[in-house]
């Protein structure tokens, strides 16, 4: 497979519903075997973008360009896509094996092949004892496993997972993370939309944050966390609760990029990559007795909170 050519590129795609502009001229590229993460607050336009990408909704403007393994442009082939929607469910009164065979059939596999891959996935996910059980009798975690199997059993070129971790306990979240990695290792490209930023930070090769229908940030986790929007976070714990006027004074200084009151006596200050935290520590000592302080690289979570709330930044790390 030609890994330098994107599997799919979005070129200025946009979509409106009445007067609401859900997606505004967004461009991006998803490379083969990449885990591409799409982030954004609720209502940012992620699901609309995903639905346009997989051909469920036609874009009002722009196009999606699909390429095959040799890099040639090809039309969208639904059989090569696996999709786990955010709003998802299964036929609760049907057996696990029959449900998987049905979804395999819908993705173009013949009956023999559908049976074979369904059995394979049932064993892989440890569901052998439930193969003939109705889905409603399974635990939520096991139902989620069946759900993801139904999206991936035909070995798609692109697997789109919309909120795959929602409703899962930490153990099942970890299982899901490993499963996504395995699927990628088997040659499938993964487009992932989720709110669990700690998991995204570990999983994603590329992150794109959108807010209010616009792309606000795009790059690798490394680029984002150490680029212009990254930097350092200084957490300072005071002996006494922090006065409101102190927060106003800190915010008045332009060199502090972000400020968060995490506890009544604990603040988190975000600095750009070249800003000096030591000077700030000295200043803060004058305003109140400091109990502890800690400096760390700004996490994806912190950057996300800032850019998703603020909207468009001036520049993106990938553009630098």
């Amino acid at each position: 497979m030609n890994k330098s050519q994107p599997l799919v590129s979005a070129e200025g795609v946009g979509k409106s519903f009445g007067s609401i502009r859900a997606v505004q001229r967004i461009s991006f590229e998803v490379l083969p075997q990449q885990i591409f993460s799409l982030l954004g607050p609720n209502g940012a336009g992620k699901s609309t973008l995903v639905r346009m990408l997989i051909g469920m909704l036609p874009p009002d403007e722009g196009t999606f360009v699909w390429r095959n393994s040799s890099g040639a442009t090809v039309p969208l082939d639904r059989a090569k896509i696996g999709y786990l929607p955010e709003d998802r469910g299964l036929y609760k009164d049907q057996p696990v094996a029959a449900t998987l065979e049905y979804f395999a059939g819908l993705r173009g596999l013949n009956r023999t092949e559908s049976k074979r891959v369904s059995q394979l996935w049932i064993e892989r996910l440890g569901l052998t004892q439930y193969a003939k059980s109705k889905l409603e009798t399974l635990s939520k975690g096991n139902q989620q496993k069946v759900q993801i199997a139904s999206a991936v059993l035909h070995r798609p070129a692109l697997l789109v997972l919309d909120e795959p971790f929602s409703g899962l306990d930490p153990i099942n979240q970890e299982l899901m993370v490993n499963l996504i990695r395995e699927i990628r290792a088997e040659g499938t490209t993964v487009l992932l939309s989720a709110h669990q930023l700690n998991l995204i930070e570990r999983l994603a090769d590329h992150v794109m944050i959108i807010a209010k229908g616009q792309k606000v940030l795009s790059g690798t986790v490394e680029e984002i966390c150490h680029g212009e929007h990254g930097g350092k976070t200084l957490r300072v714990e005071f002996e006494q609760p922090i006065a409101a006027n102190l927060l106003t004074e800190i915010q008045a200084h332009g060199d502090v990029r972000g400020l968060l009151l995490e506890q009544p006596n604990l603040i988190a200050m975000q600095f750009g990559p070249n800003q000096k935290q030591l000077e700030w520590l000295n200043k803060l000592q004058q305003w109140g007795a400091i109990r502890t302080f800690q400096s760390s690289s700004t996490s994806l979570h912190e950057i996300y909170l800032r850019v998703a709330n603020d909207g468009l930044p001036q520049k993106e790390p990938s553009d630098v």
Partner: protein
Amino acid sequence: MNPSICTVARWEFFRFFKWRDQLIGIVSLLVSSVLGFGVVKFASSSKAVELVVVGSNQPLELPEKSKIQLRPTTETLEQLRTKLDQRSIDGILVITENKTNSSENDVELIVRQQPRWVNDLQTALNAQRTSRVIDKASITPEQFQQFLAPQAIKITTTMPNTISLADRGVAIGMGSFMVIVNFLGLSFFMVGITGEKQQRITEQVVSAISPQAWIDGKLIGLTAAAFASVATLLVGGILIYGVVWLAGYGVGMPDSLTRWDLFPLLALLFLGGAIFWNCFFAAVSSIINDPNTSAKSSLLFLPMLPIAAGFLAIPQPDGNAMRVLSVLPGTSSTAMPIRLFLGEVAWWEIAASLLFLFVGIYILRLAAGRIFAAGIMLYGKEPSWLDVIRWAIRG
């Protein structure tokens, strides 16, 4: 055919048609009918009723299979009442001459409870009274019968075959068959599509196949499931008829059931009519979020009105109303079979009926596909009628 349509059709068929359930249904029908006839047989073979007659020596002619046994007595009424209380006898029939009209009798039946066999006794008493009146009037029984007989009318029909009651029953049966198929189609689509919406299955399916392929698969699978369920009922009915026949209550086969030439045409009409209405059910079900609260649910019963109209027109199978209904798509599948059995149908009426039905299916399938494509993806607020009409026209 698109393979995904076959996949959907097979899935939908077996989702609603379960062999095991159908077999259980047939066995239950058979068992209940055998038990029913067993009860009837047992009831008819129950012990004779002993009735003691007081005050009359005139013979009473009871019906041939009557269980009543009449016995004259010399015992007093008091003694008989004691026997009645002790359950030694089943009743006391007291017949006395009417004091004002000697040709009439006063009859009193003394029993423990309201008897079921009173009709046999009534028949016998009526015959005795008639015989007494004839004797009094000095006329022969033949003259009396002639006096009661209505004016005979000779009916000459110009059509080669007259319609028997059995044939009329077959025509009604055909209409009922279609009503059951439609009701099953309604329930399958309602449960299927609104259930899929409520269980959030639609998006994953539509990401794999087009909504038109999905609805086409559903139309084939669910229509087949409805016909298969009714066919199972018919098999059950035939088996029950076998039980009835074995019990000695069977009747001969109606002439209309031997008209094999009509069967291919009937099959086309039934199949077309079911698909036509199933397109409608699919479209309406896709715009309903919750059948318990949606005002649009009542729309699903709309197809029952023209079908019911078809039944009402049975007395005049070739009347203007029936002619129109037998050509319109949606009603032709009920009205045309009734006319074919009970009336006279011109070839062009059959041709027009089939043409309109299949053109109707084509248009409704496209419109339903468009409404379905938009409706199934819409959660939360139901669309307005304006939205639905816009989807149907423009997609």
